[in-house]
């Protein structure tokens, strides 16, 4: 199968108190195909963030490896877009300057990305706030800026770590529709880590269910809903059956422990 990123047999251990090792994730295999939206769900502490950090290159696995398909990446592993739970914007930069940060880091000229930035700003509903500073924006708007920043250099892989969990319910639903439309426009390969099962089912093509201590891939569920998906599908019977199924998988493993 054609893959964009492949994790084989990845194990990560944390050093605890200098002596004892704590296994965060153990023998994880995961293939992400180009254009696929994969969600990883699990309880907090199950190692799902560790998994994302391994893909982002922030943690080196103790065993196993992460392979980026050279056919797509062409030697540049830098084309990864990242978004975390908090927006992490730089307060001394305005919206536009914050969005340009990844461009500056890879050493390209932000001037040539102005049009792309303005398009993203318009699409995410930030028009008129180009020169505002982060503290002048609401939490939801800051997270939109973080999304624009993650997308500015058309990343081959988009990594999202609980990106909407600090937002209120209404803003979160807005961000879901926004992400769905962005995903349709530009078809990013996306890895989303979340503890919100509804979010995972609504947005992804495939839900990976992780069990904790140590983190392992327990099973995966394919989500068949056609795109574009409207957020109202979350009230349908079929949708809720999927949510219930995944929820029961998560609680099963809880009883085993």
């Amino acid at each position: 199968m054609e893959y964009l990123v492949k994790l084989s047999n990845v194990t990560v251990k944390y050093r605890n108190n200098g002596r004892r090792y704590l296994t965060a994730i153990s023998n994880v295999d995961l293939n992400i195909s180009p254009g696929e939206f994969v969600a990883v769900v699990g309880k907090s502490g199950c190692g799902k963030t560790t998994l994302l950090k391994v893909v982002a290159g922030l943690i080196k696995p103790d065993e196993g490896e992460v392979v980026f398909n050279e056919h797509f990446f062409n030697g540049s592993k830098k084309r990864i877009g990242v978004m975390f739970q908090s927006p992490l914007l730089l307060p001394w930069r305005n919206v536009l300057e914050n969005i340009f940060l990844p461009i500056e880091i890879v050493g390209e000229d932000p001037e040539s990305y102005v049009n792309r930035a303005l398009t993203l700003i318009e699409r995410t509903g930030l028009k008129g706030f180009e020169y505002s500073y982060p503290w002048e924006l609401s939490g939801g708007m800051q997270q939109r800026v973080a999304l624009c920043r993650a997308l500015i250099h058309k990343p081959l892989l988009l990594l999202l770590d609980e990106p909407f969990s600090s937002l209120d319910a209404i803003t979160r639903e807005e961000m879901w529709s926004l992400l769905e439309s962005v995903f349709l426009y530009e078809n990013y390969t996306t890895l989303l880590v979340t503890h919100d099962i509804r979010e995972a089912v609504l947005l992804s093509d495939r839900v990976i269910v992780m069990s904790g201590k140590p983190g392992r891939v327990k099973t995966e569920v394919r989500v068949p809903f056609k795109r574009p998906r409207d957020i109202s599908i979350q009230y349908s019977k079929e949708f809720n059956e999927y949510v219930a199924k995944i929820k029961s998988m998560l609680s099963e493993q809880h009883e085993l422990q």
Partner: protein
Amino acid sequence: MSYSKNVKSVLSTAAILILALTLWEFSIYILKIPRYILPSPSSIIETSTRYSTYLSENLLNTLAHAITGLALAAVFSLALSLPLAYSETVREAISPLLAGFNAIPRAALVPLLALWFGLGSLPRILTSFLIAFYPILLPTLTAMVTVEKELWEILTSFGASKKQILVKVAIPRSMPYFLSSLHMGLASALVGTVIAEMIASDRGLGYVILSSTSRLDTPLAFSCLMLLALTTFTLSKALGIVEKRTVKWAYRVST
């Protein structure tokens, strides 16, 4: 702060000051305290006007040395904070030395500086530099090395090198701390210059304080103190304005 609130606070400060000076003035007369022990405000003002040329010459002299020392301290602190922030190894090697140096009472070095460099400008500039640099370096460096872990991670995943994180995040982030540390630095630099002038100089307000008290011309010494306080206060205010303009993001001031 609104304009009327501002005026109110200035007026109330002025009222307290005038009340205190009046009390001071009358207690001197009532308690018959001799001038050479504690001069009255009016005699200090009278002395200040009589010696105005002499005092302003010496004030400018002191200021020139203190500000040169402060400028050197600011440049040196910034330049040194970069390698210290960049490398933990360098930081661990050098930080104890800096802390150890800070533990030496710098005033005690003045006689040595005078021995090496004479009674000219150099010992005064060096003393103010030596006293001012640590209070500037420490907060600046701390701000540089305490970049949030998440911010560090997100920049690293964008592909940023350690040097890029220093330039794009650590340095801009440290600027409010650097600028506010200049207030401490300014006061320290003036202390340094005045001490050096008292020990090894024949010019400057420190020298004037020493020579006037030895002649029991206490009003003149008080004039010097008043001038030093006023100057430090004014310069600090000016610095505050520069600070609010250059790092307005740190104060969340919308434009």
